[in-house]
């Protein structure tokens, strides 16, 4: 009897954190096995030698980034409905770097009104030109050695970003009303931890292949697994 009590106490001690911090939704984002995804092209950076020489291997476009087992990377998976805690604006800035004439990360996710810090690590000037439809469009130059640019967006939107000087540079600012988001990695995996109990609609967005949604319920601190399989096209 004492052993049982000890066993239960030990379990509670170890499980308590999980009980406190809520459930987890994780999984993979893929494309359908029968589909052929869009081929990525080699980027010709010869017009910008200061960037070209930073790359030892060919640089590919990042519109559709795939991985093993039909994995689809750079998919933003987020809670589009059901989360009780949308309002808190994080004060920590997210950073967006221009390096080697590429945007790092390719898809930057942030909360509405969360600050962004944009830096230029290259020996060439860039201009940062987000092209939103709902938020305000702006366009700023960031020459060599210029200080970081601070920005934020106040409305939820998926915003393409480009550099006009270097036409191959494309990225995305994804502005969400929720802090429960993740970007799938090269193997397609993502994880949304710390979800309180509730009925959730989870949306997965890919810049080329659109949106998929699924609904599920978290009752306690369980882990649930979902998969998103996008219809992929070649063009």
């Amino acid at each position, binding site marked *: 009897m004492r052993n049982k009590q000890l066993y239960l106490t030990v379990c509670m001690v170890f499980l308590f954190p999980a009980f406190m911090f809520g459930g987890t939704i994780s999984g993979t984002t893929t494309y359908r096995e029968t589909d052929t995804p869009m081929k990525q092209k080699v980027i010709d950076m010869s*017009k*910008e030698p200061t960037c070209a020489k930073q790359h030892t291997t060919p640089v590919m476009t990042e519109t559709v980034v795939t991985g093993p087992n039909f994995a689809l990377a750079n998919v933003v998976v987020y809670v589009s409905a059901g989360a009780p805690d949308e309002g808190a604006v994080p004060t920590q800035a997210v950073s967006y770097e221009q390096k080697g004439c590429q945007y790092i990360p390719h898809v930057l996710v942030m909360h509405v009104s969360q600050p962004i810090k944009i830096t230029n690590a290259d020996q*060439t*000037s860039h*201009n*940062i*030109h987000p*092209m939103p*439809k709902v938020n*305000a*469009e*702006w*366009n*700023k*130059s*960031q*020459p*060599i*050695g*210029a*200080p*970081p*640019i*601070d920005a*934020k967006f*106040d409305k939820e939107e998926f915003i393409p970003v480009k550099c*006009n*000087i*270097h*036409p191959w540079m494309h990225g995305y600012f994804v502005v969400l009303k929720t802090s429960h988001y993740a970007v799938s990695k090269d193997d397609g995996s993502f994880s949304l931890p710390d979800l309180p109990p509730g009925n959730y609609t989870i949306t997965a967005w890919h810049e080329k292949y659109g949106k998929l949604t699924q609904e599920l319920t978290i009752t306690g601190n369980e882990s649930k697994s979902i998969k998103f399989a996008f219809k992929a096209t070649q063009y």
Partner: protein
Amino acid sequence: MRINHKIMFISMIVLSLGSGYAWAQNSGIASGYPTPNDGLNPSAQKGHGIYLRYCYGCHGLQGNGNGENAQWLDPKPRDFTTGAFKCRSTPTGTLPVDSDLIHTLERGVWTSGMPSWRPLSGQNRQDLVAYIKTFSPRWQTEQPGEPITIPPETEVTMDSITHGHQIFEKLECWKCHGMEGRGDGPSADTLTDSKEQPIRPYNFADATNSSRFKCGETNEDVYRIFMTGLDGTPMPSFADQLQPNDAWDLVHFLRTLQVHRRSKENDVLKAAGGKIPATPASSALLPSALPSHSEALESGNQESRRQ
């Protein structure tokens, strides 16, 4: 009974005068269409009627730049639904103030299909601006930006032009505009605007644009163009990079790229032999380090303001 033609005619005139005056509350010069109230304020309602007469063919009935003629136009007509305008006095990403829109209506947009609407009355233009502001929801939620402060122009000297040339090189304007400002820089061929339409950078040496810019023709207009950027186009704002004196130096240098324009700057350049040296003669104007972000803010080049 004989009906006197004169009396009949004069009474018809009076009748039309009376009803004409009553209708005049709803129409403008060369009258616009009578338009329903639609929840618009009276000025915007009149502007709606005027818009239908003059503007819808290019800008479209929804104000999205998709009028029946838009498919044949290059550059495309302005899409009012985004709230982004090229010719502003306010920082990039902010809404223009009313006077910016009125000036665009008065001036037109040179080398585009947008004519000067100067023959309309001042009241017409105000009514049109009030109506244009109904196309984008941003006008409900945002205040227009604070117009940038343009300090008095500095003197046109060879040093100023030389320094401007250095800035032109350091900020890499030539990547789009080319070293002679002919719009033939390495990135020029691939430029697209925010609607993914091909667009060319301004060619300073082109005689056919009468050395005018889309957003004006004075030195102040040039200052404003690169300090606020042309939203909707690849032309960014350099407000964070330039102190006012540097900005005037850049203006003076840019004027020398306009080889077909008679200007003080071209006269000064010609008097100095026609060639711009690598560094200014005066040591006081050695190339300045790019200001830190906080310095740029303090000097009055303002951060865009969003609420």
